[in-house]
């Protein structure tokens, strides 16, 4: 099972990076989101993969999983959403200002200014 879990993280990370390397803004945003899933899964797994051991104290004793990675990942999920939102809206703004969704749109505009 550990190997399967590791494969999921690896595949998601690879796909996320692939999209992040594209030349248009939207796939880059999607790629970053995918990458953040992979990172969250990785981070989460550092606490160990335990079944039926939610860290909610019920007074009966028993095993609990490590709550710390969960707390870290929880905020990471929310911040990750804020980051996705920021980058996608930046992309929209860039398209509105420069009329292109190419990641190098700003540079192309710059060199045009230099030439003129």
């Amino acid at each position, binding site marked *: 099972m550990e190997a399967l879990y590791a494969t999921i993280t690896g595949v998601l990370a690879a796909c996320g990076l692939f999209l992040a390397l594209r030349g248009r803004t939207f796939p880059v945003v999607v790629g970053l989101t995918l990458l953040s899933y992979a990172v969250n899964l990785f981070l989460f797994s550092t606490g160990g993969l335990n079944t039926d051991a939610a860290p*909610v104290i019920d007074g009966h004793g028993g095993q609990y999983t490590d709550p710390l990675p969960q707390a870290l990942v929880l905020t990471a999920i929310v911040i990750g959403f804020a980051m996705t939102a920021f980058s996608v809206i930046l992309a929209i703004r860039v398209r509105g200002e420069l009329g292109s969704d190419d990641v190098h749109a700003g540079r192309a505009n710059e060199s045009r200014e230099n030439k003129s």
Partner: protein
Amino acid sequence: MPLLLIVLLPLLGSLMPLLGSNDKRTTCALLTALAPAIAFGILLTQAGSVLDGEVLRFSISWIPALSLDFALRLDGLSLLFALLILGIGLLIILYTRFYLSEDDSMPRFYAFLMLFMTAMLGIVMADNLILLWMFWELTSLTSFLLIGFWYTQTNARRGARASLTVTALGGLALLAGLLLIGDIVGSYDMQVVLDSREIIQYDPRYVPAVLLVLLGAFTKSAQFPFQFWLPQAMAAPTPVSAFLHSATMVKAGVFLLARMHPALAGTDIWLYLVGLTGLTTLIYGAYFAIIKYDIKAILAYSTVSHLGLITMLFGFDSRMAVVAGVFHILNHALFKASLFMVAGIVDHECGTRDIRKLKGLWRYMPVTTLLATIASASMAGVPLLNGFLSKEMMLTETLDTQLLGGLSWLIPALAVVGSLLSVAYSLRFVRNIFFDGPPREVAKTPHEPPWLMRAPVILMVSLCILIGLLPAITVTGLIYAAADAALMASPPELKLAIWHGFNLPLLMSAIALGGGVVVYLLRQHLFNFQRQFAGIDPLSVYEGFMQAIVKAFQWGLDALENGSLQRYMLWLVIAVLALAGSSLMEVSSLYGGKALQPLDGILIIGAGITIFAGLATACLHRRRLISILMLSIVGLMTSLIFARFSAPDLALTQLAVEVVTMILLMLALFFLPQRTPKESNGRRVVRDVLVCTGFGGIIASLNYAVLTRPVSSIADFFLENSVPGGGGHNVVNVILVDFRGFDTLGEITVLCIAGIGIYKLLNRLRLFMPSSDFEGRPWSPDRHPMILATVSQSLMPMALLVSVFIFLRGHNAPGGGFIAGLVTAVVLILLYITRGVEWTQQRLDFQFQPIAVVGVGIAALTGLGSWLFGYPFLTSSFGHFHIPLIGDVELATALFFDLGVYLTVIGATLMILANLGKITTPHRPTKQSTTQKEPS
């Protein structure tokens, strides 16, 4: 203490000229001269005991961890140099007063000069290797400023740059060498190092150390093949040349040879390298001094030649050679500084430095002519002058050396050739400028300079004569003390006299004098001979080398930084791969020994769906809508994975975030092209796929390695203290709002800032909105579907109730501010979607920015509240309350903190989504109202 004053007074002096101004030039000069004059006086008071063989030392602990002390010493060698630096420095200050024109900033020049003087004194008086090096680099820097004083001239800038490049590079080599020596000896203290000759020379690191130190010395003293910077530095104002390039800076290199002589000299490598480099430089410099036309270039090459002579003497395996070398340092400083000053006077009066344009100046300036003649004669080694004495000693030493075994006769022979050339260029300098027929027409009619401008020359030329006539009375003591320090042993008895009887050195001197005249008369053939080499010039080699370096780096920079963001990222990822991959290779086995958990069917199916959806997101990325649908599957599966592995809070959060993310991406897609054009060529795709596969492989391997290794974490602390310390059963929530509440406060602040940033980004944004989807189908005319509206509206109170429930129970069961906030936000967004912005805004008549800010404020105030009760920031408290009808309730102050989180999440999420949604509404196009197609 006097030693410290000697070094620090000139430093103080560098501020003095700033008190003066360019208008009051004499005041400025006097103010500047004050500090070095006092230092000179102090030096003289110390001279007596030093001449008696005492070594004065002074030390303040500076950085003991680096064994770096601010340690100074004054022995014979330091005394000789300090006298030269301060004495000639004072004369230079006087000379400069008349040399600089009205347009030059005199305070600036004097400030640089004083800084340089400090650095130079520091070198010669340093009693610590690292300190010596620091002052050494300081001279490189200050000489850069001085050479580039006329920074508007290209030549000056180029000369300054060449000099800095060469000497600073040499300085770095010197540092490496000194560090090696310090490492060998175990101390950077000068005295300890000088006493450790055996330890150093038997160490295997001796050879690299001595090579590095010599590199430093040779670059500074312009030894072959580093000589080219010195003629180039002649673009400096003449006082700078007179000071730096005759008496001081270039002498720092030979000073280093003398200083390190006791510790490093005497080995074969030293003998050959130092002796032969010096000999080569001696001949090379002398030859080029004859054929140059610029009078300062003539002097520069003659300086190169004389520095070669001194270097050669320090290379010889003889004590007397060291004495001769030290003596020649003094003599050369005196006659060469005089000659540079004369060159400055000639330049000043005639407006040219080209020897072909000068002639017969003795009619205009007889006194200067006389002074120049005597100084040149001293340079040529004419008897009765000081230059003759040291040259005779040099010739005697060349006869004694056995450096080349059976071919050792070559050395005296070449020394005679060098002396002969030196006679020739000295003769040319004097005769072509001051005699040789009637004067030519020059730019302005020359006349004698003010007598104060001549005074320094007169003084130094007098010293030349005095030393030449009465060596035993004047300098023997000083030279003896200096040589004593350079040898760390008593030098052989010094018998300086004009007449030693008829002997071989005298014959050699005679040959040099006679031959020099002959060479001078036949110089035209030499010029013709030289013409065929016009293209080859060390300076152009240097410039070409520098250009090549710049080009190579430019090429590398262009190759790496071509402006492609993808490439930058690729390089980063490749770097990560290399670092992480190489570390993984060192692990013997990826499997860490922990018992593996069994697989079951549901896990395999779930994993299959996740992997498939992830791959589909990437593969179908050009069809953006499908791509984000696939992404949402990954998100939902992630949520299930969290739920499966005991993380209910994470599962809930992920689920809620997934919903808002999808709404966000759908909205964004409305404003962006629906499809990505095919741009990447096959090669790029293959490259990316390879790198990404490697990246994924590394991540997976790391994750597997982590998962199969037993962990010992700090989890137990949280699990044990959650209920007694935080008053909550849901440990994750207690960590968020209590144990690590400060982190959470930071995070919600970031969330709030991101929301405000997005709000500003969307402000006044005018976007093109397509009237149909990418296949040309118009949007549905039914904007607010009835069923959706009805269902969502009836769901709304339920959903809000659920969110409040999730919020309240968060401390003890899965839930909490983050999740509840997201649920509430989703409910409100649903309202926007189903009823439209206008309808919703009429009913929800408030801004979202304040909600987020208030949320952060509540969280922060909750934290501050604990101060009121004398507890640290963000301490929480809890208790059980009995509320009628509801029953026994456990409440914690952390609930207020969580309320802050809750409000911030709602505010930020709605700021993002509602504002983005808003820009779609004001004039939403229909198929009829717009005819233009989307540009793609």
